[in-house]
């Protein structure tokens, strides 16, 4: 690496002491050492100066040394000033900017020393420059940092994978003290299976060819226990690109791995349950289908033949006989209604309900079409036409229809029904209310009425299956809404539901 011609001096033994000294100066890499003559021109230039400033010696020898200064320093006449002090006092130390070839600057510590001959005459100045820039300092800081990091195992290896440095994190995670492991091959951290597969070699090869290797896997601690490691191996190369080792950063991810595995297990379990549920949904579907098909057929027969009897054999029945026929017919009709309501209840619970923007007025008007003509005359709708909710049109109509049917049904005998439907926007929801002047519901019953098959009255007083409100409850819940009732016995009931308000802009389709 010597930069001076040594052709004439193959034998170091013969070198003179000053020659050895010269070689030393020349070969120092970390410091720029240069000699400036009394006129401020560069007279000699070592290898460190070449590295630091970027000039080859032949480029700068004979040039004024102030090319190494910044514009501002030049204006302040710093170069001359510094030489002057050095000349006077023998020594000047300073920290400041220096300029490299190409104009980039670096922070430098410079010691300027007066050089005199034996007679005391000034023959020049020696300048020793140390680079203080970030990366040099940071190297030190980095080492301190690395050594102190607890959460990561950070260590370095030579090009063959033998460990050359070891931080406290590595000691903590892998269990080896530095003096136990330095010098050993890093494959010690791998499981026998991974070693057999050649994983350590693969890691180094990958880092060598791609610059780095990243991966996760089980690794082995000193005590033989395993941990889940997240690993980054980086190839370390010098300025010329020669590989001089690897750095390896390992993190213990066992806890996270366990968490992820747990999550995975949960996800799988959930999927299994969903699959089971889908299966049971399909079974329900088949059941409902069979109910609608098979259960209705005998009902139709009962109803049909009873009617046929009453019609075709009218003369054969006395009054009581005809009453019996009536009883059969109305029982069959009730059963038919039950089947119908149960199917509806099942459908509302089961079928997927895609949510869309629905006009409240349209849904209520559709429901109103299903009540009798006389009832419709007793019905008042107060709903803004532009009011829209996030719901499902047919399901919302079904809900309103059930509530309307109840509103007209549960009326005292001598009262003219007065049913009002109104809707209002409250913040992010729309509340739809169905108010009647009916018999009302005592407070102690206001919870129960939502349960399936729950009835407050005997059938003679008010017909019904006890499924209507259960359908409402299910349907509103499926629409992600809320529901309730305000009621006072003898005064009437107001059933209400609240649904998310939709964006007004989407109303055009329904206008």
């Amino acid at each position, binding site marked *: 690496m010597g930069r001076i011609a040594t052709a004439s001096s193959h034998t170091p033994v013969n070198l003179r002491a000053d020659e050895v000294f010269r070689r030393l100066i020349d070969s120092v890499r970390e410091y720029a050492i240069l000699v400036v003559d009394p006129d401020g021109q560069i007279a000699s230039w070592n290898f460190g100066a070449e590295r630091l400033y970027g000039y080859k010696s032949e480029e700068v020898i004979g040039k004024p040394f102030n090319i190494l200064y910044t514009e501002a320093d030049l204006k302040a006449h710093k170069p001359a000033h510094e030489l002057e002090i050095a000349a006077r006092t023998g020594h000047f130390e300073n920290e400041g900017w220096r300029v490299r070839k190409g104009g980039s600057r670096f922070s430098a510590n410079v010691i300027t020393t007066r050089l005199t001959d034996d007679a005391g005459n000034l023959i020049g100045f020696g300048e020793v420059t140390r680079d203080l820039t970030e990366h040099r300092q940071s190297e030190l800081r980095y080492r301190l940092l690395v050594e102190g990091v607890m959460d990561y195992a950070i260590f370095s290896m030579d090009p063959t994978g033998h460990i050359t440095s070891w931080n406290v994190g590595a000691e903590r995670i892998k269990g080896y003290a530095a003096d136990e492991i330095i010098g050993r091959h890093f494959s010690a951290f791998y499981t026998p299976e991974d070693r057999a597969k050649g994983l350590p070699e693969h890691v180094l090869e990958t880092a060598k060819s791609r610059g780095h290797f990243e991966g996760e896997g089980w690794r082995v601690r000193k005590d033989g226990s395993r941990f889940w490691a997240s690993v980054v191996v980086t190839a370390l190369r010098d300025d010329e690109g020669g590989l001089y080792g690897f750095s390896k950063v390992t993190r213990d991810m066992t806890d996270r791995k366990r968490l992820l595995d747990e999550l995975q297990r949960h996800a799988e379990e959930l999927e299994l349950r969903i699959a089971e549920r889908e299966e049971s949904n399909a079974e329900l579907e088949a059941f409902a289908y069979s109910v609608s098909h098979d259960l209705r057929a005998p009902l139709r027969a009962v109803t049909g033949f009873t*009617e046929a009897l009453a019609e075709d054999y009218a003369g054969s029945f006395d009054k009581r006989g005809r009453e019996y026929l009536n009883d059969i017919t109305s029982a069959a009709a009730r059963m038919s209604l039950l089947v119908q309501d149960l199917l509806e209840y099942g459908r509302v619970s089961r079928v997927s309900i895609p949510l869309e923007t629905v006009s409240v007025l349209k849904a209520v008007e559709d429901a109103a079409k299903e009540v009798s003509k006389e009832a419709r005359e007793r019905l008042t709708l107060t709903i803004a036409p532009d009011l829209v909710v996030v719901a499902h049109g047919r399901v919302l109509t079904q809900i309103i229809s059930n509530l309307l049917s109840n509103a007209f049904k549960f009326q005292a005998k001598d009262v003219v029904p007065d049913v009002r439907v109104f809707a209002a926007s409250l913040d992010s929801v729309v509340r739809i209310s169905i108010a009647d002047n009916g018999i009302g519901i005592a407070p102690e019953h206001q919870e129960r009425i939502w349960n399936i098959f729950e009835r407050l009255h005997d059938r003679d007083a008010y017909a019904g299956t006890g499924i209507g409100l259960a359908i409402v409850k299910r349907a509103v819940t499926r629409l992600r809404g809320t529901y309730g009732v305000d009621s006072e016995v003898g005064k009437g009931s107001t059933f209400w539901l609240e649904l998310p308000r939709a964006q007004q802009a989407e109303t055009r389709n329904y206008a």
Partner: protein
Amino acid sequence: MPEAPVLLVEDDPADVRLIQRAFGKLPDMIKVIRLTNGDEAVSYLAGDAPYENRGTHPMPRVVLLDIKLPRRSGFEVLEWLRRQTTAIKRLPVVMLTSSRHSVDINRAYDLGANSYLTKPDTASQLEDLALRFQEYWLSLNELPDLHTGPTAKAPR
């Protein structure tokens, strides 16, 4: 040549009786041939044994077809019929079933049903249905020629 009959494919004997009763109450007599499963329906329409004699087993004007049938479902009968290359594939088919499922309704039309009726709950409604069926399908509606043929060469 006497009026061609209506072919009723229905397995439920109660439904058959109620339907026949309803047809019996119509002002004009309609001849109804009743078969109880899908296989029989296909054999009958194909003229296979024991239905090869068209004198005693005449080609129907319209088929009243239930969906849920033993052996071969109404859908399979319909599918078979529309797949034929002779003129019988034109035969009008009216589904008469208890299913109100949109899946069933759509499938029936997809397979080429001409009409879809559901069985009513009461005898009087059934009488009404029989009357309208007669008025529309047997009187108002123009029926296709099931003998001469082939638009069979027409694209399938």
